[in-house]
C-alpha cells in the first residue's frame, strides 16, 4: 500500500515568490494535516483538514493557506515567501480528524533564497 506521498521532494524559490506543495493521503484516510519543520526543531502544526473543511489552524501568518480536494488530497500554499520559510514541510494523514494515529509523508524541502 502506498503511504502518504508529497510532491515535489525539493524546491528552491526566491523571496517574494509563491509556492504550492501537494499531498496525497493514504487510501481511505480523509484527514490531512500540514507541519513545518525548521532544521533542528520539532514539527510545528500549520493546518488540519477533514472532509474538505479546515478543522484547525496553528500560529502561522495569513500568507499560509491550504485546501483539501474531493479525493482528500491537499495543497499548502505560501505567498510572499520569506527566508524564514525555508523548512521541511510535512503532510500527515489519518482516517478521520479525531483519529490520533497520524502517518507522515517524506516531506518537501523548501529553500528560499
Amino acid at each position: 500500500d502506498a503511504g502518504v506521498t508529497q510532491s515535489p521532494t525539493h524546491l528552491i524559490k526566491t523571496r517574494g515568490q509563491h509556492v504550492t506543495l501537494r499531498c496525497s493521503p493514504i487510501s481511505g484516510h480523509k484527514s490531512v494535516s500540514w507541519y513545518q519543520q525548521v532544521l533542528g526543531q520539532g514539527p510545528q502544526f500549520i493546518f488540519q483538514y477533514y472532509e474538505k473543511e479546515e478543522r484547525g489552524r496553528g500560529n502561522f501568518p495569513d500568507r499560509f493557506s491550504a485546501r483539501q480536494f474531493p479525493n482528500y488530497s491537499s495543497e499548502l500554499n505560501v505567498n510572499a515567501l520569506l527566508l524564514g520559510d525555508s523548512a521541511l514541510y510535512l503532510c500527515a494523514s489519518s482516517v478521520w480528524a479525531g483519529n490520533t494515529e497520524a502517518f507522515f509523508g517524506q516531506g518537501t524541502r523548501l529553500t528560499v533564497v
Partner: protein
Amino acid sequence: QQQVKQSPQSLIVQKGGISIINCAYENTAFDYFPWYQQFPGKGPALLIAIRPDVSEKKEGRFTISFNKSAKQFSLHIMDSQPGDSATYFCAATYNNAGNMLTFGGGTRLMVKP
C-alpha cells in the same frame, strides 16, 4: 509557547545500553502521547504511543513510562542498536484534535558500536 518540552537535545549511548528520553507537557487536556522516530531526509514514523490511563506501555525494545501527576512521560530504548540512531520526537494531542500534534523539540540519538 512550547507546550511539550523534551530532553536531552542529544544523547550518545553505547551499543546494548539503555537510551532514555524525557518529555514534560503543560496542557492537561492532552490524552494521547506518541513518540516518533525520524531518519535524515525522511518524515517522522510513529514508534509507540500511550494514553494516560496506563502508566507503562512496552513494544519490543521500546517502553513508554507515563506519570500523569507530574505531567511527564519518557521513552526507554533497551539494548540500543546502531540502527536506532535517529532523531526522536515526543508529541501530544487530545481525542477531538486527532492528527493536530504538538511536538517536543527532538532528541538526536547516536548509538556507538
